């Protein structure tokens, strides 16, 4: 397998009035061709900022301070804005969480779907609209010839997310970034959308970066997973190892916190406390204050990301002995 996207030591910061908030604090990972990589973590862990950094769609006040983003042999961070525009939507596409706010309410579905192919492929209006109908068919939208003339508010949430996927896939991108694509949807609709994404991935061998907080979705969709906590990668593993024997205490805690739909538990385990504010932990492990297994070293020394073999990584002193090395730049 070949690497299509590689992030090296990415640091993205928000500049506040009198302080700098390190939202993403030195993360590295790579995405292989045809692979689905899950990025898991709770609110504020930096998972969405990571995806926006890759697309260079960060809001004002946020800045990529350091790092490299290699995509097909280029460093995205060194591209001009015009060059970046030809990558966005064309080679790397993105689906957002909220399908209502990410579609423009005053344009028809057809117009919004045509924009991409007219811009990136030089299609005429007619060609673009035909292509839009074709794409809507692929995402199983009924009556696509009529839907292209409708507006977003006329569609249900599930339909809108299908339109978003059709839009993202319309230039046949190499990489699809899906940021919580099913979080706003009901479970039965979520099942339809996940099926659709799997199907498109298998047909067009698109690589997917799937950002989610839902471990059920991860188990169903992903080949490999990275777990983020407070702006850093704390664990990386293939999906089976991650669920069978999570290495980092945070991942272990997350796994034990989820109620099960197919078993009765008397009590859930929970992780005490809450996520520290970015930049507030200056010394030691960022998870130490909530970790049951924390010891003195965790409070004083910042753990590196240990290499555990077979592509597994964990940022915990407990894994030091079984480690075969440390990940550089992380």
């Amino acid at each position, binding site marked *: 397998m070949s690497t299509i996207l590689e992030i090296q030591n990415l640091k993205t910061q928000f500049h506040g009035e009198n302080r700098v908030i390190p939202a993403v604090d030195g993360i590295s990972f790579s995405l292989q061709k045809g692979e689905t990589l899950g990025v898991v973590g709770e609110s504020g862990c930096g998972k969405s900022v990571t995806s926006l950094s890759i697309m260079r769609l960060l809001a004002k006040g946020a800045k990529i301070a350091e790092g490299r983003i290699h995509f097909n042999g280029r460093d995205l961070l060194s591209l001009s804005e015009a060059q970046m525009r030809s990558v966005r939507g064309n080679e790397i596409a993105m689906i957002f969480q909220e399908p209502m706010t990410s579609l423009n309410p005053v344009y028809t579905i057809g117009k919004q779907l045509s924009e991409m192919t007219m811009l990136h492929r030089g299609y005429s209006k007619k060609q673009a609209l035909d292509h839009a109908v074709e794409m809507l068919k692929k995402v199983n939208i009924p009556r696509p010839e009529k839907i292209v003339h409708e507006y977003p508010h006329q569609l249900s949430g599930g339909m809108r997310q299908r339109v978003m996927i059709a839009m993202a896939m319309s230039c046949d991108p190499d990489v699809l970034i899906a940021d919580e694509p099913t979080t706003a949807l009901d479970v*039965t609709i979520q*099942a*339809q959308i996940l099926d659709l994404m799997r199907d498109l991935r298998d047909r067009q061998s698109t690589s997917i970066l799937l950002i989610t907080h839902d*471990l059920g979705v991860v188990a169903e969709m992903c080949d490999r997973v990275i777990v983020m906590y407070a702006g850093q990668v704390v664990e990386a593993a293939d999906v089976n190892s991650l669920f069978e024997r999570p290495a980092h205490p945070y991942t272990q805690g997350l796994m034990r*916190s*989820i109620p*099960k739909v197919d078993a009765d538990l008397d009590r*859930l385990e*929970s*992780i005490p406390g809450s996520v520290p504010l970015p930049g507030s932990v200056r010394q030691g492990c960022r998870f130490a204050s909530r970790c049951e297994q924390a010891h003195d070293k965790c409070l004083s020394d910042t753990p590196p990301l240990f290499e555990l073999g077979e592509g597994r990584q964990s940022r915990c002193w407990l894994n030091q002995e079984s480690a075969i090395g440390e990940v550089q730049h992380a």
Partner: protein
Amino acid sequence: MSTLLEVKGLKKYYGTRKEVVKAVDDVSFTVEEGETLGIVGESGCGKSTTGRAILRLIEPSEGEVLFQGKPLTALKNAELRKARRDLQMVFQDPFASLNPRMTVGAILEEPLKVHGIGTATERKEKVKKLLETVGLTEAHYDRFPHEFSGGQRQRIGIARALITQPKLIVADEPVSALDVSIQSQILNLMKDLQEEFQLTYLFISHDLSVVRHISDRVGVMYLGRMVELSPKKSLYDNPLHPYTQALLSAVPHPTPGEKRERIVLTGDVPSPANPPSGCAFHTRCHACMEICKTERPALKETGDGHFVACHLY
């Protein structure tokens, strides 16, 4: 156990000039003292409207709600306010449901003032004690909501519901806005409080795993109707209604590589303004028969307290 709450033929219709939206369409159930009844369903199924109509935060269009045998639906405003001492609510969004300009102390004391409970000092004592009970500290008394995280705010929301020592708490998606690690803290807290204060919960959620964890019995709603109602074990192990079966099979399991039969429902939920004739689910049902298109199935018991509204049974 005795019946604490009885809901009979509850309806809530919203009329516009053109059409009538049947948000809740003839729902009946009971809640026993000390139990947790979970209500699950997808967006727009009427679960939240049901919860609010019970407390008369929304006036029901039709139907009766009996609390300890007395009809809540017949009470006048002043009597209703008095009765609400025993019926409290926890809301989904802990950011929107706390007044940002009031301190936590003032927020928690307000219900006591409304009901004329205790002197100022007694009230303050009571609030401080309750803060500890829900996992906060006395020091939080003078703080404002924005100083708290989502999980802590939900603890405040729960404390506010508890302060009048109610018998029934309607919790509408109380953990949906929280991260999983915080969600489990709140669920554990709710279970502990139930034991400590003998509370009865009506727990409304779209999350089938959460509902399984917290509930004794579970009701499934679809398009304003109760389609299945059963003790949780038999509902999750042996779902009878085709909608419940589809809903359960759609939940992604956190077990990689697991092969399961999935019933994927086609299409979207029909509009409650124009629900299908007969059984509301017949347009998406894999077992649809002729009778389903014309006749609305009644909620019938199939044994051991397992009720289902489906012509198959």
